[in-house]
């Protein structure tokens, strides 16, 4: 029985993952999930409305759901924010992390989008606008409003309406400043302005915000089409015309014109098979075409009906229209788009990488704990958890690849996901060989960190954005990018193995000479692996560059970044072969490898030159600096004389062989010697 114990936790996790595969529970009678599956075109790609809502919410609020309940009056009350806010102004807070018994109601992205689209009177009271700069909050006099969560404050549209003028003035000034030269205050103001703009666009994407019954309006517009066009023609020709007919046509057109200018997703599919597959248009643009075409695009009728039935609280009609629209799409050769919408919706529900993050943290804690009491069950549970995490991680990667029709790495976000995947694979391989929880700790730690990084990168917006023309080649993405990213994984694994060596060696007595030696072999082996992948990856990159730009090597920053990793790996290997470094030297150099790799991965994107840079993030710069400093501290610690190392002072340490083998120059022998277990 105890042999099976280590499967309990992974089993629970599996249940958790499987539970999110079912269709989400509806809190209303409206089939919001089906609405979330509807395919639309945004950022140049077909995606479900759920992704539109998900990414918009992430950009505006930084979270993927909107909490409706929480604390008020410094813990005096708990309940619906709207009900409490007059009684306890300025003290609303989201659930604290220790309030495990509280389960606040939350709006999922689609439910929120439905409100924004059809019931803005509700949406305008949702706390979705994040303002993180205190000066901006005081400038807009918002101290006594909004909801707080760990120092961040969220506001409703209604709370901000009085401050548009101030914000507009600020934005007018800020717009002239180079985005990179803006102060945090200015960035915060510009971000808020952007969020408000996005909200306005979403509100006018599915109907005009002041149109109460879009279906009736559309029906009247359709009736007015023929007489209205005739009246317009008559007027142009100077003949008598019916002003009534003309007005019936023009009045709704004014609203449609507004929609055509501001609408965000393109929700109306191409009008016929003679149009290109991506010739989607927004609702307004499609309706503006009606007078010329002499008829309505059928999809506009479905959307008008959805809007009216939602506003009039007729869930049955709403759901019926949804399924009719689905059938219409399928019957008009949009089957693949419908399928894409359903699949991506399922992917959004699954959130595989978020789940991996939780699983990896658990595994990390268990594996670390196993060092202190040497419990085999803990270690095995960590290993089983990581294995299950890897299955979910791989599944998520595959799912993404199918959705995008691309190799795993297409942008910075997916590179973080893939680096994490690579480190977990390497960590598990090490754990399988050595069974000392070290591989598990590295897998859990680096897996978790990289997924956190990926999560923060996803705040920029759509993570499945289209690839610019230069990168639009699956052959090179599948070879060069994948191989080089695995090289990153390897150098990070080596660096974190060395971190474990240093931390355990200096601060604890748990690093025996034997473990130290094993760590030495692990680091060495992984660096060999890293050298192979970085070198081959860099070469493949050169060949791609030769194919695309006509030179094998152009000293472009991203190329140089890759070269730095190769050179550094070569330095480590040659220094070790030459006996210049021993065990601790190897560790210090492996930690430095973390710096080199993080520069290559993120640093070069901040230089803002070169053909390769695919994303500029300022916040990342601070994190990168912090990381580099922390690694330098580690290197400094590693260089401390042995007498400061807790583990090596211990007199009762087994008198093993000296901590490293010094091999004479030119003896190109090593790869890890077997432990001989």
């Amino acid at each position: 029985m105890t042999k099976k114990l280590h499967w309990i936790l992974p089993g629970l996790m599996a249940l958790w993952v499987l539970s999110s595969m079912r269709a989400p529970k509806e809190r209303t009678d409206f089939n919001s999930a089906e609405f979330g599956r509807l395919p639309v075109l945004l950022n140049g790609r077909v995606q479900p409305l759920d992704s539109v809502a998900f990414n918009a919410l992430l950009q505006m609020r930084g979270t993927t759901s909107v909490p409706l309940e929480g604390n008020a009056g410094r813990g005096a009350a708990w309940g619906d924010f709207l009900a409490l806010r007059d009684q306890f102004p300025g003290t609303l807070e989201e659930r604290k992390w220790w309030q495990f018994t509280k389960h606040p109601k939350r709006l999922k992205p689609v439910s929120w989008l439905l409100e924004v689209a059809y019931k803005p009177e509700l949406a305008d009271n949702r706390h979705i606008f994040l303002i993180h700069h205190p000066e901006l909050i005081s400038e807009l006099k918002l101290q006594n409003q909004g909801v707080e969560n760990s120092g961040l404050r969220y506001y409703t549209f209604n709370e901000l309406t009085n401050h548009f003028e101030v914000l507009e003035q600020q934005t007018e000034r800020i717009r002239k400043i180079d985005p990179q030269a803006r102060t945090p205050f200015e960035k915060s103001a510009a971000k808020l302005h952007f969020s408000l703009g996005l909200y306005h666009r979403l509100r006018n994407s599915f109907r005009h915000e002041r149109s109460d019954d879009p279906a009736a309006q559309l029906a009247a517009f359709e009736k007015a089409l023929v007489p209205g066009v005739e009246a317009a023609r008559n007027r142009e020709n100077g003949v008598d015309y019916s002003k009534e007919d003309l007005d019936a046509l023009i009045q709704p057109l004014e609203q449609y014109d507004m929609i055509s200018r501001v609408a965000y997703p393109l929700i109306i599919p191409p009008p016929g098979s003679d149009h290109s597959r991506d010739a989607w248009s927004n609702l307004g643009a499609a309706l503006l075409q009606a007078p010329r075409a002499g008829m309505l695009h059928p999809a506009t009728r479905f959307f008008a009906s959805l809007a009216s039935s939602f506003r009039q609280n007729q869930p049955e009609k709403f759901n019926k229209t949804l399924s009719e629209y689905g059938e219409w799409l399928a019957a008009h050769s949009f089957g693949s788009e419908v399928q894409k919408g359903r699949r991506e919706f399922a992917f959004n529900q699954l959130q595989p990488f978020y789940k991996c993050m939780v699983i990896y943290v658990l595994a990390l804690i268990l594996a670390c704990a196993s060092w202190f009491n040497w419990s085999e069950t803990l270690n095995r549970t960590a290993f089983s958890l990581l294995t299950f995490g890897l299955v979910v991680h791989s599944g998520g990667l595959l799912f993404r690849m199918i959705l995008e029709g691309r190799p795993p790495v297409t942008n910075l976000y997916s590179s973080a996901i893939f680096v994490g995947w690579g480190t977990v694979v390497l960590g598990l391989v090490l754990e399988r060989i050595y069974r000392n929880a070290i591989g598990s700790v590295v897998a859990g730690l680096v897996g978790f960190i990289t997924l956190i990084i990926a999560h923060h990168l996803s705040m920029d917006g759509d993570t499945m954005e289209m690839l610019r023309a230069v990168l639009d080649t699956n052959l090179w993405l599948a070879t060069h990018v994948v191989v080089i990213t695995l090289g990153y994984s390897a150098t990070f694994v080596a660096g974190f193995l060395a971190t474990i060596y240093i931390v355990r060696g200096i601060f604890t007595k748990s690093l025996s000479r034997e473990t130290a030696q094993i760590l030495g072999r692990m680091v060495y082996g992984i660096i060999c692996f890293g050298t192979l992948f970085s070198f081959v990856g860099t070469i493949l990159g050169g060949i791609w560059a030769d194919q695309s730009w006509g030179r094998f090597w152009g000293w472009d920053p991203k190329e140089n970044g890759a070269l730095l990793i190769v050179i550094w790996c070569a330095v480590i290997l040659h220094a070790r072969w030459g006996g210049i470094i021993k065990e601790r030297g190897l560790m210090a150099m492996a930690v430095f490898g973390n710096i080199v790799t993080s520069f290559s991965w993120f640093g070069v994107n901040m230089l803002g030159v070169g053909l390769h840079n695919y994303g500029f993030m300022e916040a990342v710069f601070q994190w990168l600096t912090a990381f580099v400093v922390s690694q330098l501290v580690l290197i400094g610690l590693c260089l401390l004389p042995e007498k400061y190392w807790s583990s090596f002072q211990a007199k009762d340490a087994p008198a093993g062989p000296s901590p490293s083998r010094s091999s004479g120059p030119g003896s190109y022998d090593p790869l890890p010697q077997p432990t001989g277990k």
Partner: protein
Amino acid sequence: MRAIKAAFKILSSLKLTVVCLCCALVLVFVGTLAQVEQGLYLAQARYFQSFMVYWSPSQGGLRIPVFPGGYFIGTVLLVNLIAAHSVRFTFTKKKIGIFMVHAGIILLLLGQLTTELFSIESHMRLTEGESKSYSENGRRSELVVIDPSDPTSDEVISIPESRLKSNATIDHPRIPVTIKVRSYFPNSRLSRRAPMMATTPPPASHGLGQTIEVAAVPPTVKMDERNLPSAVVELVGPSGSLGTWLVSSVLEDFQEFEVGGKAFKIGMRFERYYKPFNLELQQFTHEKYRGTEIPKNFASRVRLKNLQTGEDREVSIYMNNPLRYGGETFYQSGFDDKDPRVTILQVVRNPSWITPYVACTLSGAGLLVQFLTHLIGFAKRRKS
């Protein structure tokens, strides 16, 4: 003899390898950072295509060597590798992987050197319907005097931009005038001269310089910009000054002048590389993803005509799909923001383009062999 042996020992030592690699690491890092300020082209020349990296104090022409440059490190590494292999290496089956890796790296270093020495990069800018038999070097201009008197072919005399310093005097036996450079602008902007507003005299007394204003602009180092040089030259014939002319790489039309009753043309243009064939742009397509500014595809459909071989065919050039012809490769490199009918092709002549392919295959295979033999050995030992 002992000294030579000692020197050889140092040259072939692993320590030297490590030192060189560390220097390379620093150089690549610093050279990458320097690109922000100096631009890719200049930083490349200063750090990687040089024997020494110099530091100049802000004033004065002092150049102090502070760090070994790319050529220096490359050469030492090359010598080190070859020396190490000749001294220490005994060729065994076990080391075949290492040997392949190093052979590949030697080839790679040599290949990169020949590339930097012999490759020529230029570009070809074509508007739809236009046909050209030459590409241009966007980094170097030339002053050109044309003698159109022969009806069958023009005689073209070109003077490299490097000779156009302010106050320089240029004499050429085939040019009947002396060219005095009044002013020279390495980078400039031209604008139409508004006579009512202008407070200074026009830049030149003859030709286009009477109606066009020229202003100096700081030379650019950005990847996506280029310098547009201009100059004001005075032409002095046997019977005295003929006046001044404004020449510029921006001005496509050449300007006429007369000496002794004979007409000549003068102008400035980017240096040209002529080819024995013509490329005519038939269509340029530049697609963006719907609803975004993300470029989806650039493609140039060109017609290749070679009068010597009688070849006449259509070729499509697009991203990741260049045209290789006549020892040159034509890549889709850019477009014109203002004119959707314009394509910009990059033209590269690189006689040693094949070496990196061979070198990399060799090294990559070597690494793989080495890694696999160790891995298999490791697995075997663990099993037993």
